[in-house]
């Protein structure tokens, strides 16, 4: 039997920030808010897809694809929620919708779930957190990361290796032996899906997948990279939840798109609380977690200030 660990939620209870009653109320699950949010989200990308259609052949098609891409990459926010089984009360809905989101973005869902478990166990700990993005050492490295080129390289290499049945030593630390075959099978099914889509496009001589899906995702991904950086980059590599994660206060449309994941410190405190209850949790944890009131721009201002030496680097702070 594993030893009991001090989790963020047990820490919050010990510190008296939350009561059991608060927690139980905030944890209440339902399907309604998630399905309504999903419906509006789908409508959003139908509209931006229509914009691409209407601007086809003109230069306006580029901003239309960028806008569409920004919305498409936010499938990640929903997949992330689904991997915590919180947006929908019906558990299998989270698995199906999470798998769909992962297929849109080349992030096999089961693999992501295991990887993300370790991110929650070892948040911001160098060498242990598999999702850790290090504070870049230069402005060039910062731009290189935001470009998403290293990200896509890593994603395609993961999918390729898993499809060939290879699991790396680092991945073996978070995928238990009995689950490795299902992670490999999942990667093979995703790869098969992409091959079928390419063959069907070739056969039908219609490459809408490129204009309405792959190219927009590729040009929209830097936005998601920047959002992901805002969650932890520039915060210290220590175990203290009050310090190692950043909540960014952002506009209503951004909160909608990212399924309230801007309340990231709150999410790390209690990952069983659904996205729609995070604003309430934010109020309860006021003054207890690190909040960037200037939003994602402010978070990047902080990151760049550290890179350029205007502020002390957060990676020099030790436990």
């Amino acid at each position: 039997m594993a030893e009991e660990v001090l989790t963020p939620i047990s820490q919050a209870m010990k510190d008296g920030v939350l009561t059991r009653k608060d927690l139980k109320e905030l944890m209440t699950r339902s399907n309604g808010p998630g399905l309504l949010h999903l419906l509006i989200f789908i409508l959003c990308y139908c509209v931006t897809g229509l914009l691409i259609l209407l601007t086809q052949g003109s230069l306006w098609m580029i901003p239309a694809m960028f806008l569409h891409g920004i919305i498409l990459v936010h499938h990640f926010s929903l997949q992330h929620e689904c991997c915590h089984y919180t947006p929908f009360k019906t558990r299998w809905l989270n698995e199906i919708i999470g798998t769909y989101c992962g297929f849109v973005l080349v992030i096999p869902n089961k693999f992501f779930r295991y990887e993300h478990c370790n991110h929650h166990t070892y948040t911001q700990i160098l060498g242990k957190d598999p999702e850790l993005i290090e504070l870049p050492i230069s402005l060039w490295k910062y731009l290189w990361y935001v470009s998403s080129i290293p990200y896509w390289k890593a994603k395609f290499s993961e999918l390729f290796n898993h499809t060939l049945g290879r699991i790396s030593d680092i991945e073996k630390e978070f995928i238990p032996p009995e689950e490795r075959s299902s992670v490999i099978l999942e990667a093979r099914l995703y790869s098969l899906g992409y091959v079928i889509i390419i063959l069907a496009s070739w056969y039908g001589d219609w490459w809408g997948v490129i204009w309405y899906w792959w190219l927009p995702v590729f040009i929209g991904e830097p936005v998601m990279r920047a959002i992901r950086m805002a969650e932890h980059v520039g915060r210290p590599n220590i175990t203290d939840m009050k310090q190692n994660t950043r909540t960014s206060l952002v506009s209503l449309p951004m909160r909608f798109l990212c399924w309230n994941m801007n309340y990231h410190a709150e999410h790390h405190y209690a990952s069983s609380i659904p996205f729609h209850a995070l604003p309430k949790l934010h109020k309860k944890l006021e003054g207890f977690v690190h909040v960037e009131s200037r939003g994602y721009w402010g978070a990047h201002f902080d990151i760049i200030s550290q890179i350029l030496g205007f502020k002390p680097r957060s990676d020099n702070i030790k436990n």
Partner: protein
Amino acid sequence: MREKHWRDLIPVSELEKNDVTPAKHGSLDFAVYDTVDGIFVSLARCSHQGANLCYGYFDGKTIECPLHQGLFDARTGEPKASPATRKLIMIEARVHESMVQILK
């Protein structure tokens, strides 16, 4: 081997209705589940990485770990969904004179 006896754990009146309630006996933490099939008790630690299950989401049949959302049948301790792979340690329990007791 030491003989086991029924020991008082928590009065039924203190249980959180249709939910999971934390209880302590000696140095051990227990999770008491008010399930659709009656009262069941397990050690409070998740068999995956040790988080306290009493802070988890409970639906009357299954308990979800608050840290990684692994799922267990609260009546049998069987793991139902990843990353849970090992059974919970279940403790034989009964309700006697309005008190939840465990065989220990």
